[in-house]
């Protein structure tokens, strides 16, 4: 599963998440979603720290962010 998940068809393509992700994890699609917008997506998942900033700045609460549990982290 992606650690940053989008409700794709609710994205309005404002690009705020993309702009605020300091690590450049996010990008915009070329296609339009169901409501006619290019949508945001995770393009560099490996860089993601799970900081939540993208989700916080999303006006449409499109994004959910997960982090590996400590257990998993230590295990990795």
């Amino acid at each position: 599963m992606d650690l940053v998940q989008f409700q794709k068809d609710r994205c309005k393509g404002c690009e705020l998440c993309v702009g605020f992700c300091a690590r450049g994890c996010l990008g915009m699609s070329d296609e339009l979603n169901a409501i006619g917008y290019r949508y945001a997506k995770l393009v560099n998942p490996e860089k993601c720290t799970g900081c939540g900033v993208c989700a916080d700045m999303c006006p449409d609460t499109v994004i959910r962010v997960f982090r590996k549990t400590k257990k998993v982290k230590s295990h990795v």
Partner: protein
Amino acid sequence: MIEEIIFAGFGGQGILLGGGLIAQAAMKDGLWATWFPSYGPEMRGGTCNCLVACSDDEIGSPIFNVYDTALIMNLPSLEKFGPMVHPGGLLMVNSSLIRVEKPRSDVRLVEVPVNDLAREAGSDRAANVVMVGAFCAVRSIVRPETVADVLREKFASKGPKVIDLNLRALEFGRRAVEGVTV
């Protein structure tokens, strides 16, 4: 004679302007004309359409929910307004974006790849003008030359490049339906 037209698509496709071109040209051609816009509750995005009526007589209601002609720019509009064309009426669809799955047998369907033609003419944004050009050619309500005049006036301040682009789009639309009989 009265021709009741809906021009429908989503915000940003130049729907209102496209309908305005027709109304303006109709006026220039000595007809009565009305134009009425309608949008969804969204400020941006969402559906958008306008109703245009042209007539050789004083026009009653500028609002109608059955159409002689529907100029359809996107799929939701086809679904919503396609069924509301009068039997025997004209349905023109933007085949760049829409594939008509189950064409109605009782209306005249004309498919025009307006986005493709617009891009060819110089800009995606002139798709509305392509549609108007096609409409003029299929239904002789307003003369394409009058529409061209209107375009020249409207974009006079924007310079010859913009005018040319639009005239080209108009022409591409007209040509796309050459030979299509009304």
